[in-house]
């Protein structure tokens, strides 16, 4: 029983972690909490659904096309919604992303309707393996673990060794200095939004295949991912992933013993972490001298 809870907790935690990384990539570069993150991923997942069900393309071709769409969507939202705002306040930025969220949800509802739909990925939850007696793991969970590990490694290599990755880190640390050094900061922002949208869409496809696809299906995962990001530290990519895993485990063990309290665990975690360690468990706490 404990082994099963660990597997399930880690699997859903990896989904939260992946999605939390999407949230953090934008936050790291532009210090915006993107409330439209879930709906960007939702819309891209609907595109995959559309390609699969109306054009009957093979899954992997649909996947590649969807990823291209997700990047384009992220870039477009940054370009059309965020960039025109001149020196916006934090509240202004939140309102802009909330507006984008409503717009995307309305768009999906108009195009595909509000009824739930089945979203199928090749790595089925119905194909199960029993590595140890009583411990069952399914293909969906294996795919989540492999994808999460791959994304983490690629992100590490990207931020450590590529010019663009270094430019993104520089922009995050000091936007003005980055500009002076010749980094095109606005382009970096657009790329960050595109990246974030892509990773968010991968996570959303996993969520959708485990539940159903509808315009509101990413509302709850976004809140959980945000909790994971706060838990891990909004500035640390490995931190938020570990935060997601911790949240998945806490929710599953807590939910097993006290199921009625399971829905609020994530929010209790946010409050506790903000009270005890506001920068999160794994983020370095910088003190700015003035």
């Amino acid at each position, binding site marked *: 029983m404990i082994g099963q809870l660990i597997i399930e907790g880690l699997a859903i935690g990896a989904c939260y972690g992946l999605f939390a990384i999407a949230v953090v990539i934008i936050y790291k570069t532009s210090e915006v909490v993107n409330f439209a993150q879930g709906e960007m991923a939702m819309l891209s997942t609907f595109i995959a659904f559309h390609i699969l069900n109306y054009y009957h393309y093979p899954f992997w071709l649909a996947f590649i096309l969807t990823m291209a769409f997700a990047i384009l969507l992220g870039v477009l939202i940054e370009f059309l919604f965020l960039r025109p705002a001149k020196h916006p306040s934090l509240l202004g930025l939140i309102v802009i992303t909330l507006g984008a969220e409503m717009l995307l949800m309305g768009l999906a509802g108009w195009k595909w309707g509000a009824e739930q739909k089945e979203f199928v990925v090749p790595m089925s939850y119905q194909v199960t393996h029993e590595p140890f007696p009583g411990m069952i793991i399914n293909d969906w969970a294996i795919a989540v673990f492999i994808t999460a590990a791959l994304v983490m490694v690629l992100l590490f290599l990207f931020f450590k060794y590529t010019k663009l990755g270094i430019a993104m880190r520089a922009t995050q640390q000091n936007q003005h200095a980055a500009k002076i050094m010749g980094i095109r900061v606005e382009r970096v922002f657009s790329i960050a939004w595109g990246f974030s949208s892509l990773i968010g869409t991968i996570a959303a496809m996993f969520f959708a295949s485990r539940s159903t696809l509808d315009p509101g299906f990413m509302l709850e995962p976004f809140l959980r991912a945000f909790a994971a990001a706060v838990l891990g530290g909004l500035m640390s990519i490995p931190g938020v992933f570990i935060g997601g895993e911790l949240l998945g485990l806490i929710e599953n063990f807590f939910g097993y013993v006290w199921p*009625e309290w399971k829905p609020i665990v994530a929010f209790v975690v946010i409050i506790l972490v903000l009270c005890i360690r506001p920068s999160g468990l794994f983020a370095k706490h910088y003190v700015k001298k003035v």
Partner: protein
Amino acid sequence: MKLKTTVGMIVLALAVALLMAPAAFAGKPGFDDKEIRIAAWGPQTGPAAAWGNVARGPNVMAAIVNAEGGIHGRKLKHFVRDDQYNPAQTKLVVKELVEQQGIFSFVCGTSAAGGMAVKDYLKDNKVIWVGPATSVEEYVFPVNPYLFTIMPLYEDEASILTKYVVEKLKMKKIGILYQNDPYGKNGLKGVLQRLKKYRMKAVAEIPVEPTEQDLASQMQKFKSSGAEAVLMWVAPKTAVIALKTSKSMGYTPQWVSSMTLGDYELMYKISGGLWEGVVTGAFTLPPETRHPLMDKYREATKKYAPEERWGVFFHAGIMFTEPLIHALKKVGKNLSTEACLRELNKIRNFKGTGGKITYTPKRHQGTDSIMVMKCGPNATYIKVMDWTSNELASWKK
């Protein structure tokens, strides 16, 4: 100065009078010489959007009635509002309909919590409400003079389904998954009532919120408890997640569900076929039944609402308006809320496309009967038990 004081006093008195005035003055009349306005709220978006078509069903009934010349010269006009399965939103849309549009009667109305949020408001405004698309005992016990239910109580349904599981399927270990609101809690109550009769106890009782997306720990708890059958009173999405999650853990109990998940075509599709074998209650005839009224509704849907999928819930929306139309026809030309209430209270053994309905001034719970169905291959309906009433129904004693 004196004049100012007097005017001030009058303004103050008017303000107090307005604040103290009964809510009955808030609403606009629900009919005139040309039309009768009816309305329904339902989740057109959000986690329970699969039930949204119930609220749209009365559009077809209105089209049928209007094509036949209306009711004593008055056309029927139906309004639909989206409450997103959110009681706060239900209050807003109902208030808008009553105070801005003027509604004679509400029909359908999905969500027990949403209904609970507005039932007193409707009563205070003397607005009739027939056939809520949900059924909880708080609606009609004690009798609400303006509210008439058609669906059997979840408590009665749960009791009958449990009887089927224990007596016919011979299962002894029962688990219950229930939504943490009046809908789910009434289902839970019915299961426990029946189990008590057999001197049995549920092996697990697990509440769930309709927005929860990860049910792994809950399914593990059922698995550990050894539940042979899991009875559920939850939203469609929750049910799908429960079935998928338990399947991924190698746990396959006999799933039994409320009539609210009786749209097999939809449930089969969104669960990837896992719905096959699930047992549910049924409060209306299956959609493809050959029956004069069913044939009429099916054809009318094709004609007036070709964009709608003909299924159990869309049909239920039509069925929920049947007693109201019957009463309105009986009232005659001199329509009033009181006259319509009188005719509704006279309904005895009314047979439309659901169970037999009886109302009296002291009893507004229309029926306690359900059929039991099983989802067959390709979402077909297999009747496993005919109309059965709950002999344990506490409200009949």
